[in-house]
């Protein structure tokens, strides 16, 4: 199953992760490019991360002890900056 990452958009996958064999609690995916990109969901294994980095996406894994909200806001600010430059 796929999910379209629109240009200059970001998503936290959260519920799209099957947590059985996945080391992170959440993933923030940022599309900083000007083209839409399809990502594969659900996420089952950590190999998903390099595979999707190869598509040109920024993938930020969020651990159980990380502060999700601050990581999200940081990524959001970076994306806003890139959007403003374009």
């Amino acid at each position, binding site marked *: 199953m796929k999910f*379209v990452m629109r240009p200059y958009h970001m998503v936290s996958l959260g519920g799209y992760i099957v947590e059985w064999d996945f080391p992170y609690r959440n993933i923030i995916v940022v599309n900083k490019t000007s*083209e*839409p*990109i*399809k990502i594969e969901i659900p996420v089952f294994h950590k190999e998903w991360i390099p595979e999707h980095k190869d598509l040109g996406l920024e993938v930020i894994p969020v651990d159980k002890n990380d502060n999700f909200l601050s990581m999200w806001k940081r990524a959001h600010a970076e994306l806003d900056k890139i959007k403003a430059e374009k």
Partner: protein
Amino acid sequence: MFENILTNPIVAVILTVLVCFIISMFLPGIERKYVHARIQQRIGPIVIAPGIMAPLKFMFKENVEVSSPVPGLYKALPIVCFIVVLCVLIALTPEAYKIPALASLVSIVGFLKVEEICYVLMGALSKSIMSVRMPFPDKIKGAVHNNSNLSFIEDISARRSLRMITYGSFPLYLALFAPVTAARSIFLGDIVAYQQIHGPFLFTVAGGIAAVVFFIGYMIILNEYPFSIIKAKSDVIEGPYMEYAAKYRAVVVITRGFFMFVLGAVFSVLFIGVPPTIFSWGILVNIAVALIFVVMMGIFSAFVPVFTNRQLLPTILGTTLLGILAIVIGLL
């Protein structure tokens, strides 16, 4: 003078066609209200809603411009279908028997074939937004098969219509020719005359079998459940009719009701020997047959799911064999 006008064949045909057309507009409502709704234990629409109110409503709707490579032809096709059905009815009237080229089985089959070809053309010419044209980023980075050929869902419908022409409507045509085995003529006048002397073909063994085959063929050509694969909601949605809106949709709706009546009249002529004319009480037989067919079709379609190719092929094959059996028995 008034009698002279009435006995004028052209006026007689026009009056007959008008009466039949008005009655035909009630048929979809009867099917929906008194058959489907009753079986499904719901109130259903008012009886004039599907056949009269709906086309009237569509007439006054704003049209949506179709997305077709040949929009003129696409929009003309429902009108062609209506004219074809009209021609079939005219061919059935006693006044037409004086023109053998028109009032013969060959012309009836020809008209019905035109109707079927229209479905193919409608499907091939419709390019609705429901599939390829939907503005959705399908072929992008990360997607599978970014170089695949694309087909509209109406393309599948057109291919299915083509298949129906080649084998799907075969049972109906076999049933049409079954009375010829008794009357030994393909002209409607001879078939009617034979039955008026020897009794209805329906009440013979061959006629009984052929009537069953005719009924199944009737449902197939009307694209009614379960034989509605060319407009199956589960994949091709409305199929060939997808892009018809406003007045074009009105013509489609009117044609369907009219076609139901005319096919009933075909049966009355070929199997009972009663042609449609307002100058004879026999027209009541035509109306009764049309109603019986509609009710039977409604009952049958309410209790079966749509057939896919897996069920359709054996059903059509079985019906075709029955049709052949009817003809063989008729010949013997």
